[in-house]
């Protein structure tokens, strides 16, 4: 029995150790780096000439940078859903997904912070937030909670990694000297002692408990950046919950896509099984319907009343300039994925992945719709301004920076997956033993 166990363990370890990039991996990483560099070039131009290189002007003073920021904050919430909520609820099937979720969370929150700096007109004065910060501004709340969430997410990625690093350190010849040095630096103190396990479990539990309110806060506060203003489409008490529901949906959507890709790329069919897709599909359909509910809640009541200031905005969404994007986002982001996932056949890996992609794309456009149409419907007429101020279509620099940041998130996830096991090795072994017993 002992013997067969150790074979199984070796098999698990062998399957799950980080692998060097193959040809496809190298091309993928190269493409991402190229997109990031192009985004950096666009940002250099923006730093040099100012935000004039964007298409934002006095009315549309926030554009796709802010949409993208909201999008990243939303995606990063998934770390707390998959890791913390499931762990505290005693759900074990999600173990192989926790690290993927945490990697996505860390990558997304890093780029959320970066993109908000990109949006600043005078980024060189960023330090003013710390020396002149005023607690009454929701931006300061956002700075505080995003920083907190960033550190909790990092720790929640790091602590469960420690037992795996111990395993990684026993395969020195596989990782090469530089990675080994890095592993040793971050994890050599972990000896796998029972006290260490006890302490680690406790720490992870505390993190799981704290990350849930912090996660709710980051996205609620982000919604308050809009809801604390008077503007039609933003002046809504529904906004916090509406944003959170959307965040869980897009986060879960991004996880199923990542699950599918990692499963294919690293042949993890034994660990990320069809059952995982079935279960994630159920969660995704529930979240899609929840978000749809919040959308109806958000739009139906003002639509019913059609207050003067809201009417122009709502007509713009439903039948006007933004209607194509609006209905695309609703259909692609919620309704079609719901229809796919309601059927048992729709919860096979491939359709779940397709539904996940649709959710993520729909969610990105939804964030665009949250920001821009409102700004194009101010209370007073858009008058005595150059004609270009009355429209908004992002400039190439904005697109380049946006795609650069999206590529950046994927690059960080790719690098993390190259350095660390995508699926927690030690936890998988432990759970196998528990099942066997």
């Amino acid at each position: 029995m002992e013997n067969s166990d150790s074979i199984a363990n070796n098999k698990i370890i062998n399957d799950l150790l980080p692998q060097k990039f193959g040809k496809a991996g190298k091309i993928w990483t190269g493409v991402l780096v190229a997109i990031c560099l192009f985004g950096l070039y666009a940002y250099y131009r923006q730093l040099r000439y100012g935000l004039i290189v964007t298409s934002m002007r006095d009315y549309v003073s926030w554009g796709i940078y802010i949409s993208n920021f909201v999008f990243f904050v939303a995606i990063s919430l998934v770390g707390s859903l998959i890791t913390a909520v499931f762990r505290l609820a005693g759900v074990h099937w999600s173990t192989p997904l926790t690290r993927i979720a945490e990697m996505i969370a860390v990558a997304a929150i890093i780029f959320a912070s970066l993109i908000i700096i990109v949006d600043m007109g005078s980024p060189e004065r960023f330090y003013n937030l710390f020396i002149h910060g005023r607690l009454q501004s929701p931006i300061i709340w956002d700075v505080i909670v995003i920083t907190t969430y960033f550190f909790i997410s990092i720790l929640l990625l790091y602590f469960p990694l420690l037992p795996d690093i111990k395993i990684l350190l026993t395969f020195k010849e596989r990782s090469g000297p530089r990675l080994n040095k890095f592993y040793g630096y971050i994890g050599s103190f972990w000896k796998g002692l029972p006290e260490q396990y006890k302490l680690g479990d406790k720490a992870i539990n505390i993190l799981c408990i704290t990350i849930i309110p912090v996660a709710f806060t980051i996205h609620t506060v982000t919604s308050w950046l809009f809801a604390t203003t008077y503007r039609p489409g933003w002046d809504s008490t529904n906004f916090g919950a509406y944003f959170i529901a959307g965040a869980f949906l897009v986060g879960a959507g991004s996880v199923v896509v990542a699950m599918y890709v990692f499963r294919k790329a690293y042949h993890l069919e034994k660990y990320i099984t069809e059952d995982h897709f079935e279960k994630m599909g159920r969660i995704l359909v529930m979240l899609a319907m929840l978000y749809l509910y919040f959308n109806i809640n958000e739009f139906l009541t003002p639509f019913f009343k059609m207050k003067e200031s809201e009417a122009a905005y709502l007509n713009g969404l439903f039948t006007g300039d933004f209607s194509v994007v609006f209905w695309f986002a609703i259909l692609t982001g919620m309704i079609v994925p719901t229809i796919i996932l309601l059927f048992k056949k729709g919860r096979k890996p491939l359709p779940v992945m397709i539904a996940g992609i649709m959710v993520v794309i729909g969610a990105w456009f939804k964030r665009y719709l949250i920001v821009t149409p409102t700004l194009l419907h101010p209370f007073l007429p858009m008058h005595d301004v150059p004609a270009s101020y009355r429209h908004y279509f992002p400039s190439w620099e904005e697109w380049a920076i946006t795609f650069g940041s999206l590529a950046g998130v994927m690059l960080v996830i790719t690098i993390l997956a190259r350095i660390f096991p995508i699926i927690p090795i030690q936890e998988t072994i432990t759970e196998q033993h528990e099942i066997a017993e």
Partner: protein
Amino acid sequence: MEQENNSRRDFLVTGLVAAAASVVAGCAPKSNVFEAAADEQVMPSGKKVKLLSVDGEVIEVDAAFLKPVPHMPPVSNSEARIGIPGKKFVMVIDLSRCKNLKKCQAACNHAHDLNPGENWIKVDPMKNSEHSAPYWEPTTCMHCDDPPCVKVCPVDATFKRQDGIVLIDSDRCIGCRFCMAACPYSTRVFNWGAPQISEEVAAQPYSCETSIPQKKGTVGKCDFCADMSRMGELPHCVSACPNGVYAFGDLNEDSVTNGAETFRFSDLIRDKAGYRLMEDLGTKPSVYYLPPVNRNFPFESGLETDSLQNPKN
């Protein structure tokens, strides 16, 4: 620091010439803009000029020491943040007198060295409902008593003064544009690129009261010409308007003036049923409007100067 500010102001008040004053008084504070002039070696020309010193004495200085005073902020940043003691500024805009001449706008743009195309004063064609008449409505910053922009500013770059004026510190603004989203009157503009101003203007130290020079990546807006009020003069828009649309004054004195006529503020607002824009939002603006009744000009007379007809304007 306090003393330094005082001595700087004294230079300006007495209208003295900087280099001479610093040489004579021997009190040039270190690390100020006069330092370079003080250190400079100048050969006396022999020609003497009589001047009034800071302490009121008539003194004689060689003409070679005379240097033009660089533009200095009239007050320090901390003074500009407090405001003019005992004042509560208010503006009344009489809609029955406006024909969209845009003299106010031109004067404002010129006085504040605004970018071409950028306007702090906008004159909007308004029509409240299908059967009501159209009229021209000039808008400035409302200098709200409960300003949404100030509430959301993360770094106290936009602030509310004791005299009611809302100003921007462009040396502190980080360019997040939350204030622009928060302002329901859409009054704020942003310097998206480097402002197109002369090097001389750009080199001036920024003053919250003059709002000059505008800086790349920061927000700008109507400042109620706080520098003019400090000098006891009317804002540029008020004096530029030939039709007396704007009246400006002090709520504590209960009087407003358009230059030609002076009104008791409370009477004016009561008799002509003055109101404020979007009162229901609770922003408590300092700008009051008199309704467009018995208008002096037909609405159409303003169309020729309108920006929609003439995109250049």
